[in-house]
Protein backbone atom coordinates (compact mmCIF):
# COMPACT_ATOMS: atom_id res chain seq x y z
CA UNK A 1 0.00 0.00 0.00
CA UNK A 2 1.42 3.35 -1.01
CA UNK A 3 1.52 6.10 1.55
CA UNK A 4 0.92 9.71 0.61
CA UNK A 5 3.26 11.48 3.00
CA UNK A 6 4.20 15.12 2.35
CA UNK A 7 7.75 15.61 3.57
CA UNK A 8 8.09 18.99 5.25
CA UNK A 9 11.18 20.98 4.31
CA UNK A 10 12.81 22.86 7.16
CA UNK A 11 13.45 26.06 5.18
CA UNK A 12 11.65 27.82 2.31
CA UNK A 13 13.15 27.45 -1.20
CA UNK A 14 16.11 29.65 -2.21
CA UNK A 15 18.50 31.71 -0.12
CA UNK A 16 17.13 32.57 3.28
CA UNK A 17 17.99 36.27 2.79
CA UNK A 18 15.43 36.60 0.00
CA UNK A 19 12.69 35.64 2.47
CA UNK A 20 13.68 38.48 4.77
CA UNK A 21 13.43 40.82 1.76
CA UNK A 22 10.07 39.29 0.77
CA UNK A 23 8.63 39.70 4.28
CA UNK A 24 9.79 43.35 4.41
CA UNK A 25 8.30 44.04 0.95
CA UNK A 26 5.00 42.45 1.95
CA UNK A 27 4.79 44.64 5.05
CA UNK A 28 5.66 47.79 3.05
CA UNK A 29 3.05 47.12 0.36
CA UNK A 30 0.56 45.98 3.00
CA UNK A 31 0.80 49.37 4.70
CA UNK A 32 0.29 51.13 1.36
CA UNK A 33 -2.75 48.94 0.59
CA UNK A 34 -4.26 49.78 3.96
CA UNK A 35 -3.39 53.45 3.50
CA UNK A 36 -5.37 53.37 0.27
CA UNK A 37 -8.31 51.46 1.78
CA UNK A 38 -8.68 53.72 4.82
CA UNK A 39 -8.07 56.96 2.87
CA UNK A 40 -10.88 55.89 0.55
CA UNK A 41 -13.28 55.92 3.50
CA UNK A 42 -12.67 59.64 3.94
CA UNK A 43 -13.85 60.45 0.40
CA UNK A 44 -15.57 57.51 -1.27
CA UNK A 45 -17.10 59.65 -4.04
CA UNK A 46 -13.73 61.07 -5.09
CA UNK A 47 -12.11 57.62 -5.16
CA UNK A 48 -15.01 56.11 -7.15
CA UNK A 49 -15.02 58.98 -9.64
CA UNK A 50 -11.22 58.92 -10.10
CA UNK A 51 -11.22 55.13 -10.49
CA UNK A 52 -13.40 55.51 -13.60
CA UNK A 53 -10.36 56.99 -15.38
CA UNK A 54 -8.44 53.73 -15.00
CA UNK A 55 -8.45 51.11 -17.71
CA UNK A 56 -9.77 47.95 -16.03
CA UNK A 57 -9.05 45.89 -19.15
CA UNK A 58 -5.33 46.64 -19.04
CA UNK A 59 -5.34 45.87 -15.30
CA UNK A 60 -7.04 42.54 -16.04
CA UNK A 61 -4.62 41.66 -18.87
CA UNK A 62 -1.66 42.54 -16.66
CA UNK A 63 -3.01 40.29 -13.88
CA UNK A 64 -3.34 37.40 -16.34
CA UNK A 65 0.17 38.12 -17.62
CA UNK A 66 1.70 38.04 -14.12
CA UNK A 67 -0.19 34.90 -13.07
CA UNK A 68 0.90 33.17 -16.28
CA UNK A 69 4.49 34.32 -15.85
CA UNK A 70 4.49 32.85 -12.34
CA UNK A 71 3.34 29.56 -13.86
CA UNK A 72 6.21 29.70 -16.39
CA UNK A 73 8.70 30.43 -13.61
CA UNK A 74 7.58 27.52 -11.41
CA UNK A 75 7.79 25.23 -14.46
CA UNK A 76 11.40 26.40 -14.95
CA UNK A 77 12.15 25.74 -11.27
CA UNK A 78 10.56 22.27 -11.43
CA UNK A 79 12.61 21.47 -14.55
CA UNK A 80 15.79 22.22 -12.62
CA UNK A 81 14.89 20.74 -9.23
CA UNK A 82 13.68 17.46 -10.72
CA UNK A 83 16.83 16.87 -12.79
CA UNK A 84 19.05 13.86 -12.34
CA UNK A 85 22.84 13.76 -12.71
CA UNK A 86 22.37 12.50 -16.26
CA UNK A 87 19.84 15.14 -17.37
CA UNK A 88 21.60 18.37 -16.31
CA UNK A 89 21.92 19.86 -19.81
CA UNK A 90 18.39 18.86 -20.78
CA UNK A 91 16.94 20.33 -17.56
CA UNK A 92 18.80 23.63 -18.07
CA UNK A 93 17.60 23.82 -21.69
CA UNK A 94 14.01 23.18 -20.63
CA UNK A 95 14.22 25.77 -17.83
CA UNK A 96 15.66 28.39 -20.18
CA UNK A 97 12.62 28.07 -22.47
CA UNK A 98 10.19 28.55 -19.58
CA UNK A 99 12.22 31.50 -18.30
CA UNK A 100 12.22 33.16 -21.71
CA UNK A 101 8.42 32.96 -21.74
CA UNK A 102 8.30 34.46 -18.23
CA UNK A 103 10.64 37.29 -19.23
CA UNK A 104 8.40 37.95 -22.24
CA UNK A 105 5.48 38.28 -19.82
CA UNK A 106 7.48 40.75 -17.71
CA UNK A 107 8.23 42.86 -20.79
CA UNK A 108 4.57 42.72 -21.91
CA UNK A 109 3.48 43.85 -18.43
CA UNK A 110 5.95 46.73 -18.69
CA UNK A 111 4.62 47.86 -22.07
CA UNK A 112 0.96 47.77 -20.95
CA UNK A 113 1.73 49.56 -17.69
CA UNK A 114 3.80 52.19 -19.52
CA UNK A 115 0.91 52.81 -21.94
CA UNK A 116 -1.39 53.23 -18.93
CA UNK A 117 1.01 55.73 -17.31
CA UNK A 118 1.39 57.57 -20.64
CA UNK A 119 -2.39 57.95 -20.84
CA UNK A 120 -2.78 59.03 -17.21
CA UNK A 121 0.10 61.54 -17.30
CA UNK A 122 -1.11 62.75 -20.72
CA UNK A 123 -4.37 63.75 -19.03
CA UNK A 124 -2.34 66.02 -16.76
CA UNK A 125 -2.78 63.73 -13.78
CA UNK A 126 0.03 63.51 -11.25
CA UNK A 127 0.78 62.67 -7.64
CA UNK A 128 -0.77 65.93 -6.45
CA UNK A 129 -4.02 65.64 -8.45
CA UNK A 130 -5.89 63.98 -5.58
CA UNK A 131 -5.47 61.30 -2.94
CA UNK A 132 -6.70 58.48 -5.21
CA UNK A 133 -4.12 59.22 -7.91
CA UNK A 134 -1.41 59.74 -5.31
CA UNK A 135 -1.99 56.18 -4.08
CA UNK A 136 -2.57 54.81 -7.59
CA UNK A 137 0.70 56.24 -8.95
CA UNK A 138 2.71 55.36 -5.84
CA UNK A 139 1.44 51.77 -5.66
CA UNK A 140 1.59 50.93 -9.35
CA UNK A 141 4.89 52.74 -10.06
CA UNK A 142 6.52 51.08 -7.02
CA UNK A 143 5.18 47.71 -8.17
CA UNK A 144 6.29 48.44 -11.75
CA UNK A 145 9.87 48.90 -10.51
CA UNK A 146 9.64 45.49 -8.82
CA UNK A 147 8.46 43.92 -12.09
CA UNK A 148 11.40 45.47 -13.94
CA UNK A 149 13.87 44.27 -11.29
CA UNK A 150 12.22 40.83 -11.30
CA UNK A 151 12.50 40.62 -15.10
CA UNK A 152 16.19 41.49 -14.87
CA UNK A 153 16.71 38.79 -12.22
CA UNK A 154 14.91 36.26 -14.44
CA UNK A 155 17.16 37.32 -17.34
CA UNK A 156 20.30 36.68 -15.24
CA UNK A 157 18.94 33.24 -14.30
CA UNK A 158 18.08 32.61 -17.96
CA UNK A 159 21.67 33.39 -18.98
CA UNK A 160 22.90 30.92 -16.35
CA UNK A 161 20.62 28.17 -17.66
CA UNK A 162 22.00 28.82 -21.17
CA UNK A 163 25.48 28.16 -19.74
CA UNK A 164 24.14 24.98 -18.08
CA UNK A 165 24.99 26.66 -14.80
CA UNK A 166 22.55 24.78 -12.58
CA UNK A 167 23.73 21.34 -11.64
CA UNK A 168 22.35 18.43 -9.67
CA UNK A 169 21.84 19.65 -6.10
CA UNK A 170 22.99 23.22 -6.86
CA UNK A 171 19.98 25.30 -7.83
CA UNK A 172 19.43 27.72 -4.96
CA UNK A 173 19.83 30.70 -7.33
CA UNK A 174 16.85 29.89 -9.52
CA UNK A 175 14.69 29.23 -6.45
CA UNK A 176 15.73 32.58 -4.97
CA UNK A 177 14.89 34.54 -8.12
CA UNK A 178 11.63 32.63 -8.56
CA UNK A 179 10.54 33.42 -4.98
CA UNK A 180 11.03 37.13 -5.65
CA UNK A 181 9.02 36.91 -8.87
CA UNK A 182 6.13 35.12 -7.14
CA UNK A 183 6.09 37.88 -4.49
CA UNK A 184 5.67 40.45 -7.28
CA UNK A 185 2.73 38.38 -8.56
CA UNK A 186 1.23 38.05 -5.05
CA UNK A 187 1.34 41.83 -4.55
CA UNK A 188 -0.45 42.50 -7.85
CA UNK A 189 -3.12 39.90 -6.98
CA UNK A 190 -4.14 42.14 -4.05
CA UNK A 191 -3.50 45.44 -5.85
CA UNK A 192 -5.69 44.71 -8.89
CA UNK A 193 -9.07 44.26 -7.16
CA UNK A 194 -8.29 46.91 -4.54
CA UNK A 195 -7.42 49.74 -6.93
CA UNK A 196 -9.18 48.76 -10.19
CA UNK A 197 -12.36 46.93 -9.17
CA UNK A 198 -13.61 47.65 -5.65
CA UNK A 199 -15.87 50.70 -5.52
Amino acid sequence: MSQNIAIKEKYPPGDFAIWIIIYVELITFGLLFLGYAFSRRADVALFNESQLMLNQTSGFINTLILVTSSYFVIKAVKSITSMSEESVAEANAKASKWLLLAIGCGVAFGFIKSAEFYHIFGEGIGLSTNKFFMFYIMLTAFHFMHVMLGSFILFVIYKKTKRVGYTFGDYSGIETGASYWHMVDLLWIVLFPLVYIIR
Partner: protein
Amino acid sequence: MKKYLELVWAILATLTLFAFLLGYLKIISTFFVAVLLFTTFIKGQLVIDYFMGLKNVSWKYRIVPTLWLSIVITLIAVAYYLPSSSS
Protein backbone atom coordinates in the same frame (compact mmCIF):
# COMPACT_ATOMS: atom_id res chain seq x y z
CA MET B 1 4.96 15.65 -13.75
CA LYS B 2 1.68 16.09 -11.95
CA LYS B 3 -0.76 18.55 -13.49
CA TYR B 4 -1.51 20.43 -10.25
CA LEU B 5 0.38 23.51 -11.43
CA GLU B 6 -1.85 23.73 -14.51
CA LEU B 7 -4.90 23.44 -12.24
CA VAL B 8 -3.59 26.22 -9.98
CA TRP B 9 -2.99 28.46 -13.03
CA ALA B 10 -6.50 27.71 -14.35
CA ILE B 11 -8.08 28.63 -10.99
CA LEU B 12 -6.05 31.86 -10.81
CA ALA B 13 -7.00 32.82 -14.37
CA THR B 14 -10.69 32.02 -13.79
CA LEU B 15 -10.88 34.03 -10.56
CA THR B 16 -9.09 36.92 -12.28
CA LEU B 17 -11.66 36.85 -15.09
CA PHE B 18 -14.42 36.78 -12.46
CA ALA B 19 -12.97 39.89 -10.76
CA PHE B 20 -12.66 41.69 -14.09
CA LEU B 21 -16.25 40.87 -15.08
CA LEU B 22 -17.55 42.24 -11.77
CA GLY B 23 -15.92 45.56 -12.60
CA TYR B 24 -16.53 45.53 -16.35
CA LEU B 25 -20.23 44.71 -16.05
CA LYS B 26 -20.51 47.21 -13.18
CA ILE B 27 -22.18 44.67 -10.91
CA ILE B 28 -19.85 45.31 -8.00
CA SER B 29 -21.90 45.63 -4.81
CA THR B 30 -21.27 45.25 -1.09
CA PHE B 31 -22.04 41.52 -1.42
CA PHE B 32 -19.73 41.05 -4.39
CA VAL B 33 -16.93 42.97 -2.67
CA ALA B 34 -16.99 40.28 0.05
CA VAL B 35 -16.90 37.55 -2.63
CA LEU B 36 -14.12 39.39 -4.46
CA LEU B 37 -12.02 39.70 -1.31
CA PHE B 38 -12.56 36.01 -0.53
CA THR B 39 -11.48 34.99 -4.04
CA THR B 40 -8.46 37.32 -3.71
CA PHE B 41 -7.49 35.45 -0.54
CA ILE B 42 -7.80 32.11 -2.36
CA LYS B 43 -5.65 33.40 -5.24
CA GLY B 44 -2.99 34.73 -2.87
CA GLN B 45 -2.90 31.51 -0.86
CA LEU B 46 -2.55 29.43 -4.04
CA VAL B 47 0.46 31.55 -5.06
CA ILE B 48 1.95 31.21 -1.56
CA ASP B 49 1.44 27.44 -1.37
CA TYR B 50 2.12 26.23 -4.90
CA PHE B 51 4.15 28.89 -6.71
CA MET B 52 6.26 30.14 -3.80
CA GLY B 53 6.43 26.52 -2.68
CA LEU B 54 5.61 27.14 0.98
CA LYS B 55 3.00 24.39 1.31
CA ASN B 56 5.57 21.87 2.41
CA VAL B 57 7.92 24.00 4.50
CA SER B 58 7.97 24.55 8.23
CA TRP B 59 4.79 26.34 9.39
CA LYS B 60 6.73 29.29 10.84
CA TYR B 61 7.79 30.37 7.32
CA ARG B 62 4.44 29.67 5.68
CA ILE B 63 2.49 31.50 8.37
CA VAL B 64 4.10 34.91 7.66
CA PRO B 65 2.73 35.47 4.12
CA THR B 66 -0.54 33.74 5.03
CA LEU B 67 -0.99 36.02 8.05
CA TRP B 68 -0.03 39.03 5.92
CA LEU B 69 -2.65 38.12 3.33
CA SER B 70 -5.33 37.46 5.97
CA ILE B 71 -4.68 40.70 7.86
CA VAL B 72 -4.48 42.88 4.74
CA ILE B 73 -7.68 41.47 3.23
CA THR B 74 -9.55 41.61 6.54
CA LEU B 75 -8.56 45.24 7.10
CA ILE B 76 -9.49 46.16 3.51
CA ALA B 77 -12.91 44.64 4.25
CA VAL B 78 -13.13 46.59 7.52
CA ALA B 79 -12.26 49.82 5.68
CA TYR B 80 -14.88 49.07 3.02
CA TYR B 81 -17.74 48.04 5.28
CA LEU B 82 -17.30 50.59 8.05
CA PRO B 83 -19.54 53.59 7.40
CA SER B 84 -17.73 56.29 5.46
CA SER B 85 -16.66 59.26 7.56
CA SER B 86 -17.76 61.61 4.74
CA SER B 87 -21.34 60.24 4.62
